[in-house]
């Protein structure tokens, strides 16, 4: 079963532009979505498990992180190659919708999306 979710992307203090985006440590920090307790319950996922996010523009598997902040149908993703997969190419006067991405979400056992495979 899938659920509607709105994704808000943000700039993460722990992600640096000099980093190797293929390194394990980077993926650990960048390929994540923050969900609150209630949202996690809704999808039946626990912290550290994977979730599949998809919409007409793409699909991506990322790891779930617990958010201290109440979500109310919102998940927070660091701005990264993983969150950009879900961006629509429809812009409002050239402006991309980083702060308001509509997706469907469901729990998955698939591994986190591998950028090297995606861009093979």
């Amino acid at each position: 079963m899938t659920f509607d979710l709105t994704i808000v992307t943000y700039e993460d203090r722990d992600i640096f532009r000099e980093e190797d985006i293929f390194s394990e440590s980077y993926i650990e920090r960048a390929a994540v979505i923050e969900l609150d307790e209630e949202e996690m319950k809704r999808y039946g996922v626990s912290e550290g498990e994977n979730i599949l996010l998809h919409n007409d523009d793409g699909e991506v598997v990322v790891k779930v992180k617990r958010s201290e902040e109440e979500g109310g149908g919102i998940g927070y993703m660091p701005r990264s190659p993983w969150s950009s997969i879900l961006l629509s190419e429809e812009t409002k006067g050239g402006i991309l919708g980083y702060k308001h991405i509509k997706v469907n979400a469901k729990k998955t056992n698939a591994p986190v999306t591998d950028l090297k495979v995606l861009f093979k």
Partner: protein
Amino acid sequence: MICLGCSCLCDDIECEIGEEIKVGNACLRGFRRIDSINENRLTPRVERKEENIDDTIKSAAKLLEEAKNPIIFGPENSTLETEKEAIELAKKAGAIIDNMSSFGYSGYLVEKIFRKEVNTCTLDETRDDCDVSIYWGCDPMSSHPRMMSRYSYYPRGKNRQRGWEQDRDAISIDVRRSLTAEICDKFIKVPPGRDFELMKAFKDVLSGKIPKFGDKKSIMKIGNLIKKAEFGVLFTGLGLNYSINHIDDFIDLVKDTGFRLQPIIEGIGLNKLLFDETGHVNKINYKDKSYGIENNFVEALKGDIDTALIIGSDVASNIPLKLAKRLREINCIYVGPHSNLTSHISKVNIPTAVCGIESAGKAYRMDLKEEDLEKIVDSNFLPDQEILKRIGDAL
């Protein structure tokens, strides 16, 4: 030394690069940039095959020479010299030139400021005089970690001797409880896309009406704080840009409040240089010197762009997957110090020095204060401005 880790351009950095790297006063973002001179460096490649640097420059020049519709994008943290060379190259190649400022409204707001249609002030004035600062859709604590400790909130200023404790108020407006929201006196959480309603509520308070949105008491309290401000400064970032459709109403609100506007933006040097030359800060096509939305990087990539030269900006990580894949199909050249997704999908990779550490130059702080960057260590990498010049010379 001056730190080019973000557009704060902190000028009090102590740096020793020997067997160990020791950096004083820089935030983690700034330290990581210095510490990164030994990691994840780009190697010169053409079609994934390692080449010498001269051959990569020749290949880049050839691709640009053959291009019918080229585009040049970036840089984010670089020197004015590099930005000048990028413009020269765009002229020579008849290319579009654009940068990250056109992905949100930052460019639009900066252009208004350059035209003197909206008030702004310097960060030094902010430190000396600011009593109320608002962070709308931006999180400087994460993106520009020392901005609030150096200028807008914590320091004692000439006319704000009692600093943050008594002389200053800080208000965060955002879709999430960011690090900035965590330390501000007041925080308003706005659901995605509903900033406009909050703007209207503030307008009501300013004109003495009861706001019709949110928790009225809190909105009134904050609205009155804004009304009473002697020297207010409003910082904006990507968040505001992506969630407000009514940007001109926002500008009206800024004017009504009498606040000074400071978009938190990287690469403002390119915007200023372009503005001085064309009257616009981005989205210029040097083929016919035209300006317009069709020259926005995202829009252009949907069109008939056949060659892209990206300078020091991991644009591929910030655009929709379909467009990143399109970037991989066309002739893409990446010029920059480190590997990233953009270099990974580019046909030509040309490594550069990390400017402000391995090469010198000038740069603008976000408020256009000019700083001189020194070269701290020798390296085998060429400065980015030199690479761009050599590509231009080879055209």
